[in-house]
């Protein structure tokens, strides 16, 4: 067992034991961290591994959430089925966007703007779907707040925590495997130099499509969790560009393209946001906006002085690999 494995095992043991000792508030913060860690990993597959900058991942969170929530709301069919519908819908969407963009040779900034455009288009579209609540939102009935109904994703806060922990671990394992697979090496080649990769005979179109499909499928699962954890969905919030930015901040701050970066980034940012809230409360500066100004300043400093994110620097200090 290497040092990295030992550290990972310790961390996992701590995370599994965490709900026993934590207050309800701490548990909710931890769940939120895991949510962003998972969504960040999903985004990282597309940008960190394959180098395709998406600024519209809120699209997949939103469509995934609405697919599962709509199924439950109208037909009483639980999350166990909803997650498949959500994945199918998001994979189709992701494949369509990827196909159009890559076939027409759109890359870089233009690709990023295209993903924003699709997310915004869908946001306004959902505002006009009355069947799913329109701008007034879709609300799922809160049931079994003490039980553990995993199939329907209805239960106690601790259940949601463990579901998210399981998803995050699964995503970590999947990403670790992907990164060492044929696809992973092709993606990294495309990320570093697409023309060179093409010259070596890599079908860049196919591998980029695979990255988009995997990333959108994972994000769809995050969306399903979001719907059943928060029990309310508003197009204005879930499809908003700020949600996309929230998702991608973690991997970028943590370390783009690394396995542990998205998790570390999510933890740092969520704890930071909470810390700022508490600090401002202690100082009595609770005006709307103050928190985000501080958040922005910290972000600015990290981007300026740690261009590769926190994890690569920290990994060197800990003496573990990426």
């Amino acid at each position, binding site marked *: 067992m290497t040092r990295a494995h030992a550290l990972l095992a310790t961390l996992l043991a701590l995370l599994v034991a965490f709900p026993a000792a934590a207050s309800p508030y701490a548990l909710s913060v931890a769940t939120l961290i895991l949510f962003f860690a998972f969504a960040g990993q999903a985004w990282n597959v597309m940008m960190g591994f394959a180098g395709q900058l998406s600024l519209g991942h809120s699209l997949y969170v939103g469509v995934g959430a609405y697919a599962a929530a709509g199924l439950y709301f109208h037909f009483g069919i639980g999350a166990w089925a909803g997650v498949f519908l959500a994945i199918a819908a998001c994979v189709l969407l992701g494949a369509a966007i990827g196909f159009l963009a890559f076939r027409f040779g759109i890359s870089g900034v233009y690709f990023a703007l295209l993903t924003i455009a699709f997310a*915004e288009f869908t946001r306004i579209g959902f505002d006009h779907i009355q069947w799913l609540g329109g701008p007034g939102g879709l609300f799922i009935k809160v049931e079994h707040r003490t039980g553990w109904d995993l199939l329907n994703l209805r239960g106690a806060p601790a259940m949601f925590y463990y579901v998210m922990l399981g998803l995050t671990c699964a995503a970590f394992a999947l990403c670790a495997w992907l990164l060492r697979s044929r696809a992973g090496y092709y993606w990294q080649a495309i990320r570093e130099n697409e023309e060179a990769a093409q010259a070596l005979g890599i079908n860049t179109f196919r591998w980029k499509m695979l990255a988009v499909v995997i990333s959108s499928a994972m994000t769809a699962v995050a969306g399903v969790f979001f719907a059943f954890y928060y029990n309310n969905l508003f197009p204005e919030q879930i499809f908003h560009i700020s949600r996309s930015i929230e998702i991608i901040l973690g991997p970028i701050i943590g370390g783009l393209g690394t396995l542990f970066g998205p998790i570390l980034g999510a933890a740092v940012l969520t704890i930071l946001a909470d810390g700022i809230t508490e600090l401002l409360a202690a100082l009595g500066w609770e005006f709307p906006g103050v928190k985000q100004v501080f958040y922005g300043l910290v972000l*600015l400093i990290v981007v300026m002085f740690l261009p590769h994110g926190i994890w690569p620097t920290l990994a060197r200090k800990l003496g573990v690999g990426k």
Partner: protein
Amino acid sequence: MDPVNVVNLVLAGVLTGLVYGLMALGLSVIFGVVRVVNFAHGEMMTIAMYAAVVLFAAFKLDPFLAVLPIAAAFFLLGYALQAGLINPFITRPEHSQFMLLVAVALIMVNALLVGFGPDARSVQLDYLLESIEVGPLLLDRGKLFAALVACGTAALLFAFFKLTPTGKAIRACADNYLGAKVVGLNVKHLYALTFGLGSACVAVAGCMMVLLVDVTPNLGPAYTLLAFVIVIVGGLGSMAGALLGGVLIGVSEALAGLLITPSAKSMFSFGLLILVLLLRPQGLLGRKT
């Protein structure tokens, strides 16, 4: 539908669109030269709008006069922003530049929220409500003047790039970064100058926009997206394209209110953006790179 009414709506759309166009022109100029997408563009626009509101409230300064000091201040602000923050990021990857400007935008929009609160502010001037009658057509006086100022500013900028040596040097930087360095141009200074000019454009657009709509801090991100739509439709880096794109979006917004529900009007804009990106990614008036 009364045809005169429709023509009036289209005219109002064109006038508003020209102000949109000036805002997008700032973004287009910055991207065309510095190759950085200014994700804080709409936020800067909103700051200019608040500056106009504050000057009006404090000194009863008409936004048509306030535009001069505000544009000058924004030129300096833009210069400082590029020289201090963005220049070190020129050689960094796109996502890194994006993060930097997102952080800047976050600070700007929330600083406005802290300073002014979430409520809408506006400038109340009596003559803005008067209309000019041309035959059966009605032109809103405020909109007309605002559009004229937007056109004048765009013409000045165009002349600057075509006629002055500095403008020529900036175009040289845009065409060939390395070549411009080799012939001894101070590229970093010229980049900062360009960012300053783009900021001054957005400041003028902001002062004019405050005559047309009430301002809230939340307008920032919305205007950033609007500016993206316009420059992509017109062609990133094309000056005439930005104005054309602005007019197109202005008219389509005006007509969308008539033909479909007003709340769906930006869906039309984003649909247009998607179509243009796929079919003509260089934009309507852009050059192929």
